[in-house]
């Protein structure tokens, strides 16, 4: 046992196992500065042999010696005493724990003092395979971190990367398992494969199959083969691009949006006096719509034609010229339901009525129609913001609601939302009507943001941190105090 002064505690062999790595840091700093051990010892007023013990973590130091060494090395004493050791050690223990789980799974024993003693005494195993799977020496973690800080940091960084990748893999797995679009695509592929397998089997196994049946099943095979090729290509694109990456694998609704958007949501042939040919419109769009999107587009265009017949463009624009862009006044003046007036306004050419957007949702909140408008962002992905005025109306059918809204990060100009509901389908006895809500988006009449209702896009991409309506965390940096959701 040695006692040099009051600032050093002699710890003997135990220091290397349980002491801090202050000595190692002192040695590293000294070498970085190109100082000889004797030179640093002189500056700190201690003997070179004593510094040697300190540098090898054989003596714990503090007080004046630590301060003098820190001053001589031009570093902060706290950095010498503690460094980033705690986080590094925690990371290493975590890595050892992961390895321990692997070891336990493979039948390896936990590290023991006996293992350490073997190393200390210079005994080496000759079994290289055993070396490859040795559990980490937990009782020498500090020594490892002190002697090889770069390798230790690399090990922790590698652990963090592995953990991050595991989390991402888990998230992707979860998403794939619950992705409705993927489930529908796989179902389609398997259904077509079933039809092909069954049909091919009939053709090969049925003796004396009548020519008309043969022709019929050959035709079915041809159709199904084409469908399978299309479905498989879409599926491969989807899996290759990954869900939600903005790649060209679109849901039928997204394809519909793209089709309607390409036409500016206005279809002159379906207006009164047009030729009304929906098939020609779909073919002329230049977009290869999938079957689902094609069906949706047909439905949307039939509804457009019915709306146009009930409220022709010329009549609507005359009324707008007389009353302005006031949907409620227009509905009353024209004797047309408000929801239809909203749809027709959104279908007018922009050069006639200016920028107008439209969103319609069903009772579950799913977006059915989405005509975007500059200054108001809406997406079908991840659901809408429940603060949008149209969601209030599901509990108050028949009411019309007009509110100025402002979304975060979208400039200072608010957007006016005029929302209403309509019943879908024929009345059913003793059943409430199935509602659909529509919200027309118009430029607000004023620029007063403070009077506008703060709303979002979708929780996942909304930075408002204090919103009572939040249903999932945002991927964006949070914005404090911006949402006054209590006004909702």
């Amino acid at each position, binding site marked *: 046992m040695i006692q040099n002064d009051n600032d050093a505690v002699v710890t003997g062999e135990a220091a290397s196992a349980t002491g801090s790595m202050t000595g190692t840091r002192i040695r590293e700093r000294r070498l970085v500065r190109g100082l000889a051990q004797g030179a640093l010892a002189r500056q700190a007023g201690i003997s070179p042999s004593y510094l040697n013990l300190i540098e090898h973590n054989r003596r714990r130091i503090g007080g004046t010696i630590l301060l003098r060494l820190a001053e001589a090395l031009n570093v902060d004493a706290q950095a010498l005493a503690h460094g980033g050791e705690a986080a590094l050690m925690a990371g290493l223990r975590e890595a050892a724990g992961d390895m321990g789980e692997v070891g336990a799974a493979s039948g390896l024993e936990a590290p023991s003092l006996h293992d350490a003693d073997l190393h200390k005494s210079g005994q080496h195993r000759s079994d290289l395979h055993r070396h490859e799977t040795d559990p980490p020496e937990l009782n020498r973690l500090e020594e490892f971190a002190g002697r090889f800080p770069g390798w230790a940091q690399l090990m922790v960084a590698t652990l963090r990367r592995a953990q991050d990748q595991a989390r991402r893999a888990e998230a992707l797995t979860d998403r794939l398992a619950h992705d409705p679009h993927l489930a529908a695509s796989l179902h389609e592929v398997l259904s*077509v*494969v079933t*039809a092909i397998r*069954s049909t091919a089997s009939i053709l090969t196994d049925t003796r004396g199959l009548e020519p008309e049946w043969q022709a019929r099943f050959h035709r079915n095979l041809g159709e199904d083969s084409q469908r399978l090729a299309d479905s498989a290509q879409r599926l491969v694109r989807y899996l290759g691009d990954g869900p939600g990456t903005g790649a060209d694998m679109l849901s039928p609704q997204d394809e519909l949006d793209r089709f309607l958007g390409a036409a500016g949501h206005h279809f002159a042939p379906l207006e009164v006096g047009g030729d009304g040919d929906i098939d020609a419109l779909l073919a002329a769009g230049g977009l290869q719509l999938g079957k689902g999107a094609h069906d949706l587009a047909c439905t949307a265009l039939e509804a457009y034609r019915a709306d146009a017949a009930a409220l022709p463009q010329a009549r609507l624009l005359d009324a707008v010229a007389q009353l302005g862009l006031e949907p409620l006044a227009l509905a009353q003046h024209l004797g047309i339901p408000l929801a239809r007036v909203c749809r027709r306004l959104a279908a007018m050419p922009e050069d006639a009525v200016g920028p107008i957007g439209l969103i319609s949702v069903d009772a579950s909140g799913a977006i059915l129609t989405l005509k975007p408008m500059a200054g108001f962002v809406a997406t079908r992905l991840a659901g809408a913001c429940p603060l949008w005025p149209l969601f209030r109306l599901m509990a108050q059918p028949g009411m019309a609601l007009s509110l100025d809204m402002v979304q975060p990060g979208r400039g200072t100009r608010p957007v006016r939302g005029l929302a209403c509901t309509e019943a879908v389908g024929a009345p059913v006895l003793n059943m409430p009507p199935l509602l659909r809500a529509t919200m027309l988006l118009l430029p607000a009449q004023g620029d007063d943001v403070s009077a506008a209702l703060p709303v979002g896009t979708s929780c996942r991409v909304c930075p408002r941190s204090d919103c009572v309506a939040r249903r999932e965390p945002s991927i964006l940096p949070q914005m404090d105090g911006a949402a006054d959701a209590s006004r909702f």
Partner: protein
Amino acid sequence: MAGQVLVIEDEPNIIEAISFILSRDGWQVRTHSGGEGAMDAVRERCADLIILDVMLPHRSGFELLADIRADPVLGRTPVLMLTARGQRKDREMAERAGASRFMTKPFSNSEMLEAVRALAGPV
């Protein structure tokens, strides 16, 4: 008299193939496409066996099966469920809903015939 099988499926070419192989095996086959109006078809046909797809437009096969099992007249009709999802939870869901048998797509014609004969008896 031949046993009657009602096929409720939304893939027209699967309907055609199943109809063909069952007809050739001596079954009287009736079909209905999709979930809408399917329960009316079930009541109208009073089939000896119902082949029911799980994923149907408008109504799922599980919902239809629940209605069939709740019907005092039709409740004991054997139901063979078809699905493209063969996971254990889907099988368990089918069992809980009262399916007599569960067949995963793609199946072979011989598997289909064997299942129909087992559930509805020989023709």
